């Protein structure tokens, strides 16, 4: 790098010039990050997609020998689900009739966009999934990400062809939640503990039991109501604390996450 002029300066001036340069660059970066981040993301998008393609092919090849057994298992599961579907259809019709009788508004169904994971967080601190869909597919910042009926996270950055989803176990996530059995409300947050990224729930009072299901409460209008977050796996007893804490095993297995659904019309 041609830095002859810089090397001729006195050490004090060198330090001042460098400090000023770093400060100015960082200020510029922060104010222009809206434009810089998509540009950087688009640079690594093609190799990320290539890597995901190779990895998906390898996974498919390895799974190939188990297909026959899996097919039998899925057929049995399909029969059971058909019975369950019939039962749910009846319950849905009954629910519609009862709602009409009580004059309650009909609950809307969500539109969702399926997206494949093409990368995971590069740092050891946060829990982020990089997906192959962006603003060109209608995805916007703040949209919730689900897997089935389970809450997985929230879109924190949406670029034209790629987005970042902060998972519920991320140390920055905070989700208004409630206990399904007792309707007790609290806040679910992600944290790092004992070498694992886990979820915990902070609540004021009430009895929480191991195995209790935790669902999103819908407060704050970021996450839809009624999505499963996980089940209580431990309860921390601390008499000095104002709040009580329960440890939650997430309903989504984040270690084997391959795709996500982004709710686009909440």
């Amino acid at each position, binding site marked *: 790098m041609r830095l002859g002029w810089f090397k001729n300066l006195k050490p004090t001036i060198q330090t001042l010039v460098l400090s000023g340069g*770093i400060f100015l660059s960082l200020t510029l970066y922060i104010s222009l990050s809206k434009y810089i981040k998509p540009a950087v*993301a688009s*640079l690594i998008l093609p190799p990320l997609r290539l890597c995901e393609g190779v990895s998906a092919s390898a996974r498919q090849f390895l799974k190939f020998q188990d297909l026959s057994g899996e097919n039998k298992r899925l057929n049995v599961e399909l029969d059971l689900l058909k019975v369950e579907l019939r039962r749910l259809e009846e319950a849905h019709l009954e629910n519609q009739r009862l709602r009409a009788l009580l004059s309650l508004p009909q609950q809307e169904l969500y539109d969702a966009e399926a997206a494949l994971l*093409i990368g995971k967080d*590069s740092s050891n601190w946060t829990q982020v999934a990089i997906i192959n869909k962006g603003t060109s597919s209608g995805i916007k910042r703040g949209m919730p990400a689900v897997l089935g009926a389970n809450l997985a996270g929230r879109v*924190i950055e949406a670029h034209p062809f790629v987005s970042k989803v902060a998972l519920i176990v991320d140390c920055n996530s905070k989700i208004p939640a409630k206990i399904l059995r007792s309707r007790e409300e609290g806040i679910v947050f992600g944290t790092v503990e004992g070498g694992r990224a886990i979820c915990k729930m902070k609540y004021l009072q009430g009895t929480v039991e191991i195995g209790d299901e935790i669902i999103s409460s819908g407060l704050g209008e970021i996450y839809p109501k009624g999505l499963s977050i996980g089940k209580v796996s431990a309860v921390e007893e601390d008499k000095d604390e104002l709040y009580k804490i329960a440890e939650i095993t997430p309903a989504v297995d984040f270690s084997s996450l391959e795709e996500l659904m982004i709710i686009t019309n909440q």
Partner: protein
Amino acid sequence: MKPNKLLILSLVILFAVLQATLLNYIRIFRIKPDILLLLVIFFSFYYGRIYGLVVGALCGLFSEATSAVPTAAVVFLYSFGGFILGQLGRWVLGLRALGQMSISFIFSFVIYFFLFFLLQASGANLSIFNSLISVILPASFYTAAVSPVLFYFLKTVFYIQ
């Protein structure tokens, strides 16, 4: 010999992609080595403080593009760290694998420690004890452990004796 700038940029992109994809398969207790940080250490050691600063800023940019850390936190720490490490001079060149691992460990530890405070200041749910046991120490050890192999690869790429 000065390194090719295009080669540096390509290496940063390659390492950023590997960090977000393949390294997820060698996680131990959720932790993976930080090869972007090792790239900063390598350029600071072998090419001095200005290369440390520039490569640090580039690696920070790509690291932030694939994570949820506060904007400019990693760019600042990597570039400033690269600059400081570059001040140490080329005496590090004479170090054997264990010496390189020790320097990598100390540098990773310091960077991760400062990153913890920046994350906590931005409102992350992290405690110092759990972060030290679950992230800072294991990540620093793991990063240091892979440093001799990575430095050997980079020395081969840049024809360093």
